[in-house]
């Protein structure tokens, strides 16, 4: 047999490469922290405007021991995770079928396209007063706000994924005698999956980001609550800590979803 599959790299180089880029990223983060410490240490910026890493660490310790606004830190984190996850999952669960259907059926696509397109550029914050009026100040309005943002991204990507399924693949499926339903579920859906998952990743990120806006709706606890409340009283270290926690958790979420994506889409090989 002449033709062979792609040859793997030599083992040595392969092993070193695996750790090279994560190491660079780690070094980058450490570098940023050092720069931060340097800037505050040299007094280049007022410490009220930019607290030093040390101050932030001390305040973080304080918050971990004493909580914020009569609630332990973990309770704040828990509420935020609950809201963001709920909104995210609901959004994605509805967006995938709607997105796929939009592309699959042109009539449905024509019906919903202008509605989605209209709402897309409007930032979630703008809807807060309406949300309060229609859904009150409880968890519903907050989760709905996050749901809307999450839905938006995944529906777009799912529709695009569906549209980009190669014609040949669909013809191959038809050729094999598949019914329309089988074609949709066994050919189009898996083929659109990479695009769908890209949308899901973006939805996860945006759900977490919109959280702070959602928690403006009379949240009694949460990371967004901490940031807004601390900001009102010019407690900059607390604002920093809130932002840091949000960032770290966001990073974690992205990492998890990427790992999940890699497992699910292993068949793409090195993309």
């Amino acid at each position: 047999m002449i033709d062979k599959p792609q040859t793997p790299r030599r083992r040595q180089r392969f092993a070193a490469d695996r750790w090279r880029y994560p190491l660079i990223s780690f070094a980058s983060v450490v570098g940023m922290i050092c720069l931060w410490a340097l800037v505050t240490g040299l007094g280049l910026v007022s410490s009220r405007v930019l607290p030093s890493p040390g101050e932030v660490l001390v305040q973080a310790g304080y918050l971990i021991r004493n909580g914020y606004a009569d609630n332990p830190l973990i309770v704040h984190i828990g509420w935020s995770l609950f809201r963001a996850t709920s909104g995210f999952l609901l959004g994605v669960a509805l967006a995938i079928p709607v997105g796929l259907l939009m592309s699959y059926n042109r009539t449905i696509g024509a019906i919903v396209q202008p509605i989605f397109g209209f709402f897309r550029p409007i930032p979630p914050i703008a809807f807060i007063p309406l949300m309060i009026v229609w859904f009150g100040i409880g968890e519903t309005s907050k989760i709905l706000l996050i749901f809307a943002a999450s839905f938006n991204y995944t529906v777009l990507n799912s529709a695009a994924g569906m549209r980009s399924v190669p014609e040949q693949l669909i013809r191959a499926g038809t050729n094999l005698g598949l019914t329309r339903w089988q074609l949709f579920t066994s050919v189009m859906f898996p083929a659109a999956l990479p695009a769908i998952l890209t949308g899901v990743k973006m939805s996860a990120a945006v759900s977490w980001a919109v959280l702070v806006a959602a928690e403006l709706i009379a949240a009694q606890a949460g990371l967004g609550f901490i940031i807004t409340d601390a900001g009102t009283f010019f407690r900059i270290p607390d604002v920093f800590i809130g932002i840091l926690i949000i960032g770290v958790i966001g990073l974690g979420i992205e990492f998890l979803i990427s790992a999940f994506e890699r497992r699910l889409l292993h068949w793409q090989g090195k993309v």
Partner: protein
Amino acid sequence: MDRARVKRLSRRSVLAGLAAAPIGLSATRGLTAETGQPLPVRIGIQPQASWLLYVARDFKLFEKAGLQPTYIRFTTGAQSIAAVESKSLDIASPGITPYVAGLAQGVDWKVVGIDATMSGAEGIVARADSGITKLEDLKGKTIGVARGSTAYYGLLAALKGKGISKSDVKLLLMGPPEQLGAMRNKDIDAVAVWEPWIQRNINELGGRLIGMDADFGVYSTTGVYAVSREYADKNRDVIERFLTGLVLAYQYIQKNGPDAAISAVSEAMNVPRDVIKIMYQEAPVPNILRWADTGYQYSLTKGGAYHKQVEQMTEFLVAEGIISKNVDLSNAFDVSYIANVLRKLEKQ
């Protein structure tokens, strides 16, 4: 002044008016005599009942006092803290709570004046069908309030006066717009809030006014004029000319009535005139001529009634964990500037 007008004005306004009347016209000339080159100044302005500031702005009284003012709009006091700290603002007009919060976070600034004395315009409104008619009825009820605000303090101070502690009520933390929605949906039984939200809760939802901060003995609900200590020490002229402008505004209101002030604030807050009119009656313009007078409710003198009230409020904020460390308020108020201005006034 005719009788009808006397009846409409509050007592304090009348007394102040009588005090100012003989000074009237001549003061204007005296105060502005030494201007020379107008000094530039950046003044923070917020949508609140800063009567004197708005009148001074609209009638160019700061210019008359020898300033070249630039006005910067802020929506919250917290923003003006950051602006002063970054030296992009000279004179801020935050509420007393953001002032103290800034102080607690190490912002080195002091109060040189007050405006918007809201103790009569901030209080508790109960839902019509909640069965609450007096303070004691709030026990066990759910109350919407903005955390750490002067209304928060006013509410808890009022309840404390009746032996009701924080754990005897359920507080739901939210801002005034959310409170309206929550009242409408019956998620809460009462709110602790400031004007014009009190009027809105009453007019739009048929709420019942239980009482204002002043009714419960709380007089710290004010706006202040705050400047960084460094700036104030280097720019005495600017501060004094600023306060002169406010004095001119006060005299203007005494002479011409509060209509101009009401119109200006109505536009700034985007609230109908008749609501602001009520607000003026509840929270009239402070008597700037008495700011150096130790006997005055809103005097800036160290150890005065106002100073004590603010100290109490600050202790409360520390106890609530809203302010992380105990602040030293002993030098927070600097009465020297207004004292100087008033002295020059008297010389006329």
